[in-house]
């Protein structure tokens, strides 16, 4: 019962999605299921926040090492929830522009998200230094392509290229666009996409048929 019902639900939901794709009168069912999906996903955010509350609450209670940080996490979570649910501006929602929630978004969330993302600029440099070595034929191909695409698609790189003897007759930007990006890159991307699509369809099929069921957990 604990396993059979979910397997049946999976099969029915999947079958409905497939059938509605091909048949006009049933397409409303697909839309309805999609709505349901979105609603359940949003409920999952509650699950996420609740598990954060529980996990961090426990650490604070136990006074585990570094519990002060967990308290900070809980405080910032609760403060955001309070602003996002309780502080209504006149005739609007708590998430509108100019509200405390919006202030948190603009001045806490956005800068930190962007700062974390921009750490990538540093990591990409250290990864290039460490990993890009002409160890084998494959590594050399990767290295040379990356080097060319990186350097000669920026104004300074183009300027450098134009100083080169003979080679400067070749339009390097056009060469990269046409042959590397348009030719080899397109081929490689397509092959990965095709292979992955076949794998994806296969996994989906196995899930619908109940062959692949690890997502349910292996025991009760």
């Amino acid at each position, binding site marked *: 019962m604990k396993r059979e019902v*979910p*397997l049946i639900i999976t*099969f029915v939901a999947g079958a*409905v*999605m497939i059938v509605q*794709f091909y048949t006009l009168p049933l397409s409303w069912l697909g839309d309805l299921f999609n*709505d349901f999906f979105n*609603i*359940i*996903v*949003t*409920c999952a*955010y*509650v*699950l996420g926040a609740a598990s954060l509350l529980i996990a961090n609450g426990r650490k604070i209670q136990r006074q585990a090492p570094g519990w002060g940080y*967990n308290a*900070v*996490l*809980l405080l*910032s979570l609760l403060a*955001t*929830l309070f602003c*996002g649910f309780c502080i209504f501006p006149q005739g609007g929602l708590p*998430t509108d522009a100019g509200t405390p929630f919006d202030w*948190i*978004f*603009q*001045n*806490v*969330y956005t*800068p*930190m998200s*962007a*700062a974390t993302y921009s*750490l*990538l*600029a*540093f990591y990409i440099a250290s990864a*290039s230094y460490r990993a890009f070595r002409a160890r084998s034929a*494959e590594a050399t191909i990767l290295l040379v*392509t990356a080097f*060319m*695409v*990186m350097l000669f698609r920026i104004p300074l790189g183009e300027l450098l290229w134009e100083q080169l003897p003979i080679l400067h007759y070749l339009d390097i930007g056009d060469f990269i666009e046409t*042959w*590397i990006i348009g030719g*080899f*890159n*397109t*081929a*490689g991307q*397509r*092959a990965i996409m*095709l292979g992955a*699509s076949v794998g994806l*369809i296969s996994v*989906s*099929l196995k*899930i619908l048929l109940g062959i692949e069921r690890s997502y*349910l957990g292996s025991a009760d």
Partner: protein
Amino acid sequence: MAVSGLDVFGLWIGAALSLCIFSFLYRDNPFYRLAEHIFVGVSAGYYMCTGYWQVLQPNLIARLQDGDWRYAIAAVLGGMLLMRLWPKYAWVGRWPLAFMVGIYAGYNIVYTMQAQVLAQVSDTIVSLWNNPDWTATLKNWIILVGVLTSLAYFYFSVEHKGVIGQAARVGVWVLMITFGATFGYTVMARVSLLVGRVMYFQDVWTHTARWLGIS
């Protein structure tokens, strides 16, 4: 543009938190940990609030208020998911999980077929001669050979020996060029992000200066 004290305060908070994040580049430290925990808390809260106001409110609550009772099913399924919080009843949460997995398994089958398999195969069918110029011809050959050899690399039921082995080897080269190109492109993207942050710090300064009436 008028700058208020609150704006400037916000900018400085943002700049300080950004610096805390950047401090991780030196090594893990209390400032980073502080910022990290604030970040995790704020973003979990942010997702929950926007999710509620932009999805649950209009798509569930408003519809139930309008009397569309079909949506009660979604509410029940969502509620069942929350049962995961009580280990004893966690199995109840499998039902909505199974429903979601089912929807996307079915969806993946038909849409992947449409957008990836059919579209990509049909795009790969190109003219190998009779093109207006030689560049198009050569490019088409590269694409055809590249796709076939790279696909050979993804062959699992044959050892990579003989013809398949050689094709797979060429395929790996094509894949390496693909990865190299992607890497090169990404460098630009990532550096742009850093440039964006530097501009942000610049803005913080100009706004502060304007507020103080210096500039």
